[in-house]
């Protein structure tokens, strides 16, 4: 079966997804699973009344089955008690959709997990993870290759911005100064990636807006493990803290203030 051969029911939910959006207000909790790195990200908000899911909405970044499973579970969960809703499994969702391609059963069938996350968050009265979540910068480990490539692609300062012209540049989070620097480098370089272990940027609103409007890409919850290359920097290895996964990114320069 091709990974994109979907049942009519999957296609129906993909074409006309139910309950898209975000709920706000009292008695609302949020759940989230997945990661844009692996290609699927799902967010649910639930509104609870008398221990029942009174309303539920979702947002999804992902393939056809990611959209369809998220949409389907909102229909399955609405009106159920929290205990009943917790029992909805991945298989239940797939069955309701008349099945999913085997390869998609694991990767894009995250809706049940995301719903459970939302319910757990509600039951633990856990508040939304706020923007100002403290970052875990304190225990930064040694970055392999940092010394080897110093001044051959690794820089501890960036006075000479023209150096980054046409260079794909990674800027490691060292506070507001490094974020401002990423913004300046993006005037020279078509590709600037800002790497932070935090879940959100710690900067004032003005700077955040500027970043959002710029071409600077932010990698949240990520750490730089290793810098690699041949004479000069060619790629870096990144640790995705959320998924506890490692992957490589092709970069020509790294700035560590």
């Amino acid at each position: 079966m091709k990974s994109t051969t979907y049942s009519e029911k999957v296609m129906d939910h993909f074409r006309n997804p139910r309950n898209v959006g975000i709920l706000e207000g009292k008695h609302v909790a949020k759940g989230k699973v997945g990661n844009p790195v692996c290609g699927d990200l799902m967010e649910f908000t639930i509104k609870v009344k008398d221990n029942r899911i009174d309303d539920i909405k979702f947002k999804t970044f992902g393939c056809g089955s990611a959209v369809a499973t998220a949409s389907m579970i909102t229909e399955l969960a609405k009106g159920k008690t929290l205990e009943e809703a917790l029992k909805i499994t991945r298989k239940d969702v797939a069955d309701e959709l008349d099945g999913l391609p085997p390869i998609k059963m694991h990767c894009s069938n995250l809706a049940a997990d995301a719903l459970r996350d939302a319910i757990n968050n509600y039951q633990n009265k856990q508040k939304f993870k706020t923007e100002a979540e403290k970052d875990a910068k304190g225990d930064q480990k040694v970055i392999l290759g940092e010394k080897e490539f110093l001044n051959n692609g690794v820089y501890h300062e960036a006075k000479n911005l023209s150096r980054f012209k046409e260079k794909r540049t990674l800027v490691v989070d060292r506070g507001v100064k490094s974020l401002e620097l990423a913004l300046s480098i993006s005037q020279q370089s078509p590709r600037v990636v800002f790497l932070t272990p935090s879940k959100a940027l710690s900067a004032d609103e003005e700077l955040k807006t500027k970043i959002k409007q710029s071409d600077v890409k932010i990698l949240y919850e990520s750490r730089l493990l290793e810098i690699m290359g041949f004479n000069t920097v060619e790629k870096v290895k990144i640790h995705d803290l959320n998924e506890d996964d490692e992957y490589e990114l092709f970069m020509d320069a790294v700035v560590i203030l």
Partner: protein
Amino acid sequence: MVLKEDIFRMTIYLDYQSSKPVDSRVVEAMLPYFHEKFGNPSALHEIGDEATEVLEKCRQEIAGFINSEKDEILFTSGATESNNLALIGFALRNKAKGKHIIISEIEHISIHNITKLLQRMEFTVSKVPVDQYGRVSLKKIADRITDQTILVSVGYANNEVGTIQPIAEISRLCREKNIAFHTDAVAAEGLLPLDVKKDSIDLMTLSSNDIYGPKGLGVLYIRKGIKINPQIIGGGQERGLRSGTENIPAIVGMAKAAEIIRQEREEEVKRFKAYRDKLIKNVLEKIPRSYLNGHPEERLPNNAHFRFDGIEGESILLSLKDKGISVATGSACSSKTLEPSHTLISLGLLHEEAHGSLEFTLGRFTTEKDIDAALKALPEVVDRLRKLSPLY
């Protein structure tokens, strides 16, 4: 002839990179060789002689297509076999000279997997990174050359993002250093003028379908003096380098396809370029936070490769499919391995950006109406999916 390309009026096909229809003139040329002229070139009777004659005539036509000599053309079952024969055949024959091979990070998946096999045979393989546009750097190749290097393989143009490589410069460097140079020219075939003499190429992979010929036929050009070991052993056809009875109907088809390209390429490419440029200009203008992947100038005339912030490629592909438009994506979700395209990652793209990519490749039967339909559908699709996305 009933075999017209009318099928293309029913669907909007913008994925010529993955498969091309066989031109009806090619089908017509092939037909007699299935039934009336069915001979085996190895047979010594009249029907066999007729087959030998047409085989050598076709070989001449295809040699002319890349400016090679006739006996430098070897027929195979397709580009994948040609790549296998070029790399494994050359490496095994020449391992006494050295056991180091250089390829680029954005080679076709067959080249990547063949070099994995060679590594298990104790060859060392260096992969040269590309810049943000997908261009291989001559300096980075030169840096990696050692006295053990026997072969460099860099594709003429990339099959996904369409970036054209500085082939003449790379091959000149190899010739100076007495290193053999192989190029997989499948993506460039029929779109760029290919000249193995001018470009100092030692080994070149071609495919029949990529110039609107039948599938199941490929060519390996082997410059005179370059020695390789055969990979398929049998009755000694193709100078003993590739045994097996020659696929005469397909060879006739490819020769006809090459003849058509020789006559029509320039005009055809002019048309592709105009459509491609219209597509690129309008997509980037109409869709906010959309980007062109690959090189802005050094790109194949029929290729437009985009990425869109905040959405995923398979979802875009499915939505366009609903509107009767066929395109391709580098997203993991539509691949067999669930890994994003290694080419897009090599450009320095983040995984989520690679997932959000979309590839248009135009071809012989593309009309301006097709482009207009895509331009109408795409902004609506992107907008709808962005409304669903937590990332946008």
